[in-house]
């Protein structure tokens, strides 16, 4: 048995950011992760906005960044595109294997104990209350006793569910994703998004990692019945630009594109990041949201630690602050996702044909009315699906 002030399950960006912040506030923290190599296997498109550290200073070593992104290109099924070069579309394509290790090193430097090859098997309970985590570490059973357990488990969220958090993903509210990292893909420094029936209820993406290297991936709706690998292979096969592309790595995963969990804390328990479904419902990105949530959670945890009070009531300050910062934006994004998923190829062709980058910028920032008015004037049939955006 080992004792800590907090045991964190999962060494992705949420877990290690929490650990670094909590350790620098004087808490003794252990981060456990079942993987032997943190950051691997990658289950992610690796794209991230430039403002991901939300104003805080986090200097990434250049090795964490595969490429700098100047903007985004959104394609309709007939091949027309809109180019976006707003501050929100500037960013990076990361090298997640190096990025995740860098964040773990930062946590270690701040004093957190990092333990790979250690798989949580269940919650440790004392008198019915959460009191730590049971695990298997390098083949040996072990107990980590702590008054606070932090789930940074990602989509699996098994401890979170055991703790009563509603983190079970439903097929309707997930995208299932398949992705190849490929060479011989000529790239400009723009992320590319392809809408339409090639990716039922999702999109195909090309995220450049260099001049001729890209993550080429697809997400399809979990309830669409589509086979993401098959859809991706077909998209690549009919794209002349991909003719010489070779697969260097295969990545896959599923991601929440629904609402965040209803409750992110319980007595002696917090869920941060994708474990709490803190993910953008339109693009499925979660790194920046996870890191921001982890910082808020660590601040609240440090106060709870000082007061020796890890009750749900005290910990809920994290959830209140997080929702105040993110909820409105994410609700609008969910609304937008639910409209996008109803558009046909003809709708996409019509919409992308009639709007400009300023319209699109407004749409993505949640200012729906001007664009819906404009589109419906020319294509009245869209009103039926777009009316939800006018509420």
């Amino acid at each position: 048995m080992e004792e800590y002030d907090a045991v964190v399950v999962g060494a992705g960006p949420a877990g290690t950011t929490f650990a670094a912040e909590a350790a620098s506030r004087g808490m003794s923290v252990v981060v456990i992760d079942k993987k032997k190599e943190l950051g691997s296997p990658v289950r992610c498109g690796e794209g991230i906005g430039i403002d991901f550290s939300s104003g805080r200073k986090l200097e990434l070593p250049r090795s964490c960044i595969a490429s700098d992104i100047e903007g985004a290109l959104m394609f309709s099924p007939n091949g027309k595109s809109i180019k976006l070069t707003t501050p929100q579309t500037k960013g990076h394509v990361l090298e997640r294997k190096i990025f995740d290790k860098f964040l773990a090193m930062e946590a270690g430097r701040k004093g957190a104990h990092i333990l790979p090859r250690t798989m949580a098997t269940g919650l440790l309970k004392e008198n019915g209350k959460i009191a730590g985590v049971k695990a298997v570490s390098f083949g040996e059973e072990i107990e980590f006793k702590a008054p606070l357990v932090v789930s940074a488990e990602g989509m699996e969220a098994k401890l979170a569910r055991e703790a009563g958090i509603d983190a079970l993903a439903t097929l309707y509210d997930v995208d299932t994703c398949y992705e190849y990292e490929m060479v011989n893909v000529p790239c400009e420094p723009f992320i590319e998004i392809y809408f339409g029936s090639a990716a039922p209820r999702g999109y195909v993406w090309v995220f450049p990692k260099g001049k001729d290297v890209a993550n080429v991936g697809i997400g399809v709706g979990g309830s669409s019945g589509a086979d993401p690998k098959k859809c991706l292979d077909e998209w690549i096969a009919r794209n002349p630009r991909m003719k010489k592309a070779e697969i260097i790595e295969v990545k896959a995963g599923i991601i929440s594109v629904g609402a965040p969990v209803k409750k992110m804390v319980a007595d002696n328990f917090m869920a941060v990041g994708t474990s709490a479904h803190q993910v953008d419902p339109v693009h499925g990105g979660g790194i920046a949201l996870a890191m921001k949530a982890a910082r808020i959670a660590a601040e609240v945890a440090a106060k709870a630690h000082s007061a020796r009070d890890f009750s749900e009531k005290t910990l809920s300050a994290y959830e209140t602050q997080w929702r105040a910062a993110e909820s409105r934006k994410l609700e609008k994004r969910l609304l937008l996702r639910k409209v996008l998923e109803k558009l046909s190829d003809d709708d996409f062709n019509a919409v992308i044909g009639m709007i400009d980058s300023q319209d699109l910028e407004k749409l993505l920032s949640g200012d729906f009315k001007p664009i819906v008015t404009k589109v419906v004037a020319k294509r009245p049939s869209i009103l039926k699906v777009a009316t939800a955006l006018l509420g």
Partner: protein
Amino acid sequence: MAVRVDGSKCVYCAGCVSVCPFLALTLNEVKIIVDEKKCTECGTCVKACPAKALSLPKKISG
């Protein structure tokens, strides 16, 4: 009986683990482990798997 995992297709993404309503699946880094006592063969994981590596056992009728 329980859901079957084709290890030659599985990419260890744990998508199946995330959607299993019965907490019957576990990813231990390089293998999906199925708890046969918990699996109800509901098929949710089969639909969620991006690699189509999961299948339900064939029912023997009669």
